[in-house]
Structures are given as structure tokens and as C-alpha cells.
């Protein structure tokens, strides 16, 4: 009997000792932050260190089998798909030509306006290995951590759109807060109306755009992009589309957003580890900043040096050639100019197409300061000659009377 009591007491003491030790260890782990892991509490480091290697190995082994199956065994329809993709590439190449043209034009305008763009210069692909397992915490774990150069607040995206930001880093894993979590936030802008707001998640897992006044017109289906105002997501990344618009609280609209990225089925994501902010590169014009007037003049027909002995017909032929260094295939305005009849006078031939050219560029970069304002401010102190009337009729129809007036008034003949 004494043996039994003694054994019971020993066991009880041992259990009490273990419980006391365990409680203190857990208490310590809750309090202690580990500097090497971004100041994360030790208990979080332990739990993720135990859980995530298992989920990581499950995901990776599953991918290994899936890759083997899809790449070596299940190849049904691959030939047909290949043909379809080739057709698609051909169509996209055609589309690309137009886009390159637009982009180069936008870059030129951004350059002369002194804009700085954000370029995603480095990304790290990562695999989603687990979730937090809670409906109240919409976050995921990825298989890349501080050892891979991941840091907190780095944006996480997919090709479809933004996903979230890195909230916490561990050695080999990171916790990514999704954009549909109530504690998340991202600066966004409506693509068409250019209205800015803040994207936040709510309790039921949907995303809502806040801070848009109720007197603004927002249409369902409109695209939403990142505005870059949060200093986390680079500007211009797709966010989603407007799902519904309704009245909200305090004179604001309640805009529900359908995220572009499928947040419930994330498997692979990209962590943007480096974003450069620099001025757009000049297209075939060198890096030195130039005045708008100079750049526009280069894109227009070169004015021949004064040669009084040349006949008028020869002058006009020279005048229709694009300027050196300007790519004629990427310059619609220059091509149009070449078709216009020469007026025989240098000044009008140079001036009038600029108006059309600027108008085209302004349309391409909606809601941004136009080149016109630069032209006006740039040449305030320079007296301009008055143009003859035939110059106006020879070129493109004016897009905006005020623009035409400003350019016509301010630009000097070269």
C-alpha cells in the first residue's frame, strides 16, 4: 500500500514539476522576442518551426508527383494546345507592336515631365505551404524566409494581381497577410475614373474599397490598380474589379471589390524583393533631360538649313523627312506629317503638326499633366512669330482649341 501511495506521489510530483516548468517555458516564449527573426516572439518561431516543415514537405512531395504525372504521363491534348498557343503568340505580337508604340510615347512624355516610375527589378517565387487555419486571420505561409532575402512589408503578387504583403519573416518561411484580412490595407486607384481609395478586407473575407465619396460615379466592372500611395505595392499592379457599388457610411461609397488574384486558391506567388524608382529611359534619345520643345521638334520634319538658292519643291521634300534618331515606325504623328503638303515656309510646317502630336500624347496619358503646360511654361519669355493662316489648314484638325492656341503661340521655329 505504501508503495502505491509513494509511486502515486512521485508521479504527481513529476507531473506538477513538468507542468510548472512547461508553464514557465511557455511564459518565457511568449515574452521573448528573437532579434534574428525580425523580433518575432519565440513561441511563434517554435510553432511555425514545427508546423511549417511538415506542410512544406507535403506540398513539395505532392508537387513532385503532380509534375511527374503532368510532364511525363498525362500529355493528352498537348499538341493541340501548342498550336493554339502559337496562334496566340502571333496575335500577341501584333498587339505588342501597338503597345510598344504607345509605351514609347508615354515614356517620352514622362521623361519630359520629370516623372519617376517604379520598376519591379527583382522577385522571388514562393510556394504557399500553409494557412493560419483561422477564419479570423486571413494569412498564408510561404516557403521563403529571411534566408532568401525576404523582409517584412514586401509586396506579394501573382500574375493576376496583388495578394498581400509579408507580415512576419522566419528563417525559411514567411507569413503573408492577404488583402482580404480586416487588418490589411492597400492604396488603390480606379483605372478609368482615377479615383483613389484604400482597399481593406472585412470580417466575411470580402474586399472593400474605402474613401470614395458618394457623389462620384463608379461603375461595376471597372478595373482597380495599385496607386503606389501605400509605399508597399508598386504603382499600376492589378488589384481587381469593382463588383458592386452601394451607399456606405458617412458620405462614402461602399465599393465591393472582386480581387484579381484568386485568394482562396493560391499555390505559387511572387515576392517583390526590389523595386527601383527611376525616371523612364529615353527612347533612342539619350539620357540627358531635354526640353519638351526640343524633343517635339526632333519628332517633326527637319527644317533644312537656309538655302536661298534651293527651289521650293526641294525644300518641301526635305521637310517631310523625320528627324534623325526618331523611329518613324513608332511615330504616327511624324508619319502623318510626312503626308501633309509642305507650305514652303519653315515655321508653319514645324509648328502645326506639333499640336496634333501633343494631343495624341495627351490622350495616351489621361489625367496626367500634358506636354502643353510644359510648352507654355517653358517658353514664356520667348516672343513667338505669328504664323500664316495656311499653316493651320495644312495640318491635322485641332483636338482642343486652347491647346492649339498655346502651342501655336509658344513654340519657336527651329
Amino acid at each position, binding site marked *: 500500500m505504501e508503495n502505491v501511495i509513494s509511486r502515486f506521489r512521485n508521479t504527481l510530483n513529476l507531473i506538477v514539476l513538468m507542468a510548472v516548468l512547461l508553464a514557465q517555458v511557455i511564459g518565457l516564449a511568449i515574452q521573448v522576442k528573437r532579434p534574428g527573426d525580425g523580433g518575432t516572439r519565440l513561441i511563434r518561431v517554435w510553432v*511555425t518551426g514545427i*508546423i511549417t516543415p511538415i506542410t512544406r514537405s507535403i506540398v513539395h512531395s505532392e508537387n513532385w508527383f503532380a509534375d511527374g504525372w503532368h510532364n511525363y504521363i498525362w500529355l493528352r491534348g498537348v499538341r493541340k494546345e501548342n498550336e493554339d498557343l502559337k496562334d496566340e503568340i502571333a496575335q500577341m505580337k501584333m498587339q505588342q507592336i501597338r503597345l510598344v508604340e504607345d509605351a514609347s510615347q508615354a515614356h517620352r512624355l514622362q521623361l519630359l515631365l520629370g516623372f519617376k516610375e517604379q520598376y519591379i527589378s527583382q522577385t522571388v517565387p514562393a510556394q504557399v505551404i500553409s*494557412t*493560419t487555419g*483561422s477564419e*479570423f486571420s486571413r494569412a498564408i505561409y510561404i516557403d521563403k524566409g529571411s534566408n532568401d532575402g525576404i523582409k517584412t512589408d514586401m509586396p506579394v503578387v501573382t500574375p493576376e494581381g496583388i495578394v498581400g504583403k509579408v507580415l512576419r519573416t522566419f528563417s525559411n518561411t514567411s507569413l503573408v497577410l492577404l488583402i482580404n484580412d*480586416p487588418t490589411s490595407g492597400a492604396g488603390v486607384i480606379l483605372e478609368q475614373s482615377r479615383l483613389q481609395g484604400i482597399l481593406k478586407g472585412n*470580417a466575411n473575407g470580402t474586399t472593400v474599397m474605402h474613401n470614395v465619396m458618394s457623389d462620384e460615379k463608379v461603375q461595376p466592372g471597372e478595373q482597380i490598380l495599385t496607386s503606389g500611395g501605400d509605399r508597399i505595392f508598386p504603382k499600376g499592379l492589378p488589384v481587381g474589379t469593382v463588383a458592386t457599388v452601394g451607399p456606405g457610411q458617412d458620405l462614402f461609397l461602399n465599393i465591393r471589390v472582386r480581387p484579381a488574384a484568386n485568394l482562396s*486558391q493560391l499555390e505559387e506567388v511572387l515576392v517583390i524583393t526590389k523595386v527601383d524608382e527611376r525616371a523612364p529611359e529615353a527612347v533612342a534619345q539619350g539620357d540627358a533631360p531635354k526640353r519638351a520643345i526640343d524633343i517635339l521638334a526632333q519628332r517633326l520634319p527637319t527644317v533644312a538649313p537656309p538655302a536661298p538658292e534651293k527651289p521650293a519643291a526641294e525644300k518641301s521634300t526635305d521637310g517631310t523627312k523625320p528627324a534623325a534618331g526618331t523611329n518613324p515606325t513608332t511615330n504616327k504623328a511624324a508619319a502623318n506629317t510626312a503626308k501633309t503638303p509642305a507650305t514652303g515656309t519653315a515655321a508653319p510646317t514645324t509648328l502645326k503638326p506639333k499640336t496634333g502630336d501633343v494631343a495624341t500624347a495627351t490622350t495616351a496619358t489621361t489625367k496626367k499633366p500634358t506636354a502643353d503646360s510644359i510648352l507654355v511654361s517653358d517658353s514664356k519669355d520667348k516672343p513667338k512669330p505669328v504664323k500664316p493662316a495656311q499653316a493651320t489648314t495644312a495640318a491635322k484638325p485641332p483636338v482642343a482649341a486652347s491647346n492649339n492656341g498655346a502651342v501655336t503661340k509658344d513654340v519657336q521655329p527651329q
Partner: protein
Amino acid sequence: MTISQAKQERIEVYKFNPAVTIGVPFVALVMQAFIPVKLHFFSAFDLPLLVTIFFAVARRSQVSGCLTGAAIGLFQDALTHQPLGVYGIAKAVIGYAASSLGAKIDVENPGSRLLMTFGFFLVHEAIYIVVARYLVAMNLTWLWGRELRDAFANAVLAVVVFAVLDKFKQQ
């Protein structure tokens, strides 16, 4: 035979192998973290809560149930981005309540398990939201539709999970 003796005879207190005591909550946490990656709807389930209820009811010890719930909840908190202790508090209360209930009524048949889990899930969510809103100032709202749906889903799952876990019981 006194009433208390008769009552004592009816109540069966179960024990578990230490490997089961540690392994089952651990597997529950891993599954809770991993399965929603593939099956998003699984985040509506709360396997750690079901495990807490099961151990609390089987052991019928309020202290044990409370500690088990607190430990499981704390580990679950560690996986989230939220402050530590929100799940810990909610699950500690549920562990205590479940073991108290297990000592008084029969919770061995599937029907009572279904009702018990349904009720405990709602209480758990209520505690979680109250703590999160008023202690941690998190912006959470009670959505009746979602809570009732999740409670029912968890109750159904509990019947299956408890039947599996019954095999690890040691009298």
C-alpha cells in the same frame, strides 16, 4: 450503495497515452494549417477545438480540460498574425466547460456529441469575438449565418472525429 457511489460508477474517466495527448493536437494543428491550402472551405472547421472538447469530455477533469484548451489555443494563436492568447482564452473556457459537462451528462452517443459541439462552437466563437473586440480592439463582427453554418459543420465533423479518437481511449 450511496447515490454518489452509484454516480461515480456510471462516470467513466479515460486516460490517454502521452503520445496521443501530444500527437493528436499536433496533427490537428497541422491539418488545420495545411488542408485549407487545397480545400479553402476547410477553414470553416476548427479541428483544434474539436480535439479540445474531446479530451476535456473524456478526461472529465476541469483543470486538465482548461490547461489542454489553453495550450492548444496558444499554439493556434502562434500560427496567426493576431495577439497571443485570444484562442487560448476561448479554448481554455471551452475545455473547462466541456469537462464540467462531461462529468454530468452522457456525451458518448452521436446525438449528444452533435448538440454539444454545436453549442460549444458558438460559445467559443462568441468568446473569441468578445475578447478580440474588447481586449485587442480587433475589427470583428458576429455574422449569424456564418456562425450557425460553421457550428453545424463542426458538429457533424465532431461526430466522425470523436468516433475515430475513441479508439485511443484508455480506461
